[in-house]
């Protein structure tokens, strides 16, 4: 990962936060910039919830590159436990140490126990790594898709999020000198316990409005025509008003824009839209609903809106 040589200080105001994000082509709305600024300033974890593909994970990545911090990512999954998330002992090395001690005839049990459970044999996993001192400033800790784990795992996080420390029974408590910047994301496939949310600043990341989405498309898809980008954004915005099972996110808009640019399209037409709908919609029922006549109807509606706006 490329990082600037000098650590960048955290932004001093909401406007600075907006500028910082915009510098990395992340166009946030003011509410998100406010909560992000507060999280950085107050040293609190940021809890982002929202539909898939609205740029929750991206925020952590952008923060790490613009602030020049290391990004430590913990991808959550069902069955995630302490040994994969916090720490693990190097058992093979420990067993060898025990054998060696035996061979040497050392029988001081207390010392052996102390030696075997020392930092030398500790394997640090993401949560513990995030507490380590870092020359470039505290790292960005991204705990991604927390809703994918079960409730039991949330309990492990409470201590980390509240006090930025981890307790290892054999070793004691490890506390971060400078707390990391923590970003927790959730797709809301289940509710996260209130005890965890209480320790964080909460923000719901929604779909952007047409104006902001257009800016995002133009910033992220190089070489896209003005007319095409406008039509794409208006089409997606119209699609979000339809009764679909899964609405397209910003990530889908960007994929679609890239796909249409690759196909050398200059404007939307019903055939191309129907052919490339799979980039935008991910459920067969949704595709069947929009394909064909509905697609051309939406295109006409979008064109009429755009003409009216001019």
């Amino acid at each position, binding site marked *: 990962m490329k990082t600037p040589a000098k650590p960048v200080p955290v932004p001093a105001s909401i406007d600075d936060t907006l500028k910082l994000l915009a510098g990395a082509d992340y166009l946030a709305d003011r509410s998100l910039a406010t*909560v992000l600024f507060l999280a950085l300033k107050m040293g609190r974890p940021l809890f982002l919830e929202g539909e898939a593909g609205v740029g929750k994970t991206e925020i952590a990545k952008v923060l790490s590159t613009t602030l020049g911090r290391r990004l430590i990512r913990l991808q959550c999954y*069902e*069955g995630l436990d302490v040994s994969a998330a916090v720490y693990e*002992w190097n058992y093979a090395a420990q067993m060898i140490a025990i054998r060696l001690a035996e061979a040497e005839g050392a029988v001081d049990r207390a010392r052996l126990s102390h030696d075997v459970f020392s930092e030398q044999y500790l394997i640090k996993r993401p949560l513990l790594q995030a507490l380590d001192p870092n020359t470039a400033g505290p790292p960005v800790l991204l705990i991604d898709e927390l809703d994918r784990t079960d409730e039991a795992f949330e309990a492990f996080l409470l201590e980390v999020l509240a006090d930025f420390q981890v307790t290892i029974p054999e070793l004691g408590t490890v506390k971060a000198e400078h707390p990391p910047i923590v970003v927790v994301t959730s797709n809301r496939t289940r509710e996260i316990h209130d005890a965890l*949310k209480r320790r964080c600043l909460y923000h719901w990341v929604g779909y952007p409005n047409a104006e902001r989405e257009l800016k995002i498309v133009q910033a992220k898809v190089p070489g896209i025509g003005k007319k095409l980008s406008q039509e794409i954004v208006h089409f997606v915005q119209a699609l979000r008003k339809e009764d679909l099972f899964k609405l397209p996110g910003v990530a889908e808009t960007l994929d679609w824009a890239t796909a249409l640019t690759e196909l050398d399209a200059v404007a939307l037409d019903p055939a191309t839209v129907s052919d490339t709908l799979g980039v935008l919609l991910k459920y067969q029922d949704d595709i069947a609903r929009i394909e064909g006549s509905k697609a051309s109807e939406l295109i006409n509606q979008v064109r009429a809106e755009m003409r009216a706006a001019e």
Partner: protein
Amino acid sequence: MQPAGRLAENIVYFARALRVAGIPVGPGSVLDALAAVRTAGVGTRDDFYWTLHSVFVKRHEQSILFDQAFRIFFKRRGYLEQLMSMTMPQIEGMPHEPAKPASQRVQEALFAGLGDKLQREIQEVEIDMRLTVSDQEVLQKKDFAQMTAAEVAAAKDAMRRLVLPLDDIRTRRLAPNRRGRLIDMRRTLRASMKGGGSFIDLRYLGPRTKKPPIVALLDISGSMTDYTRLFLHFLHAITDARKRVHSFLFGTRLTNVTRALKAKDPDEALAACSASVLDWSGGTRIASSLHAFNKQWARRVLTQGAIVLLITDGLERDPDDRLAFEIDRLHRSCRRLIWLNPLLRYEGFEAKAKGIQTILPHVDEFRPVHNLESLGELCRSLSVPGGRAAEGRARIARTEAERAA
């Protein structure tokens, strides 16, 4: 910028109003809010709004309540304007929007909690609000006190004996287990250190099992009136006994009553339910209710191998393809779909109604449930270990065979 002394006071009052309106705001959040306002300063109205929002709101649903509360509270107090007029050359006027029904709770919260002067001010708004609450549907409030005392006692008794099915599912998490097949290195080494590491006593891990979540969808339409109260007791009992139970009521619209049923006392829980539902004993729109569930809730509550209890008579007003589509989607997004139907009590029950015929092929189990006796039977049948999909299909086949004969 250092907030004025009055601001702190106002945030405390505002937090209290939020609490009464139904957003759980602890004293910790109030301190956080003060710190946040101190950090961000009172710049524009929007920044102030989002600053408080980031601290007080912990769920997406709470955003609406917060928005209403913020609007009313700081409008009435006129305080924010004063504060901003000191720091800004010009104040933007408040957009005047028509009141929404959702603000009723906020209105009540603000009305109940604050000083005399404020109460008078709010009262004007409240009258305004009352007039705008429209009666778009037959919104009847159902009185729960219709069941006789004896019936209630008997029902509660039946509920107490309720044992839920023993259908543990395997999780991917491991727990210490003597007969497990994986070696637990952490415990093994710790145990062997006790003996100075001279011998190594192996400890094992096995998969941990847990009860799957239950999601209940209860029909409260007119044709189900006689049973809804009983089933609500039933839902309260299982909510009490199990950790992860989500309950939804539907008639013409879908209502999530999970939180209401969490109250320990059944009467309190049922009263809370009754307060949150607006379409008691109205019509049935199974397809649109299932559609709402599939769209808004299925992905949030049907994870981790959930069982769905669908409690309805299946008498859809106008059954069409949508019902088949929605029930099929529901069936495919849960681990097991159990249909409890009070109509099954009739000896010669025939699945003639089109709605019933549409739903039948998509359920794993089809069970009778109609009154107190059959409720006892339901408890017993649910308590039988197993009760797998195959059994349910056998039951459906039996029903169909009887119908054919």
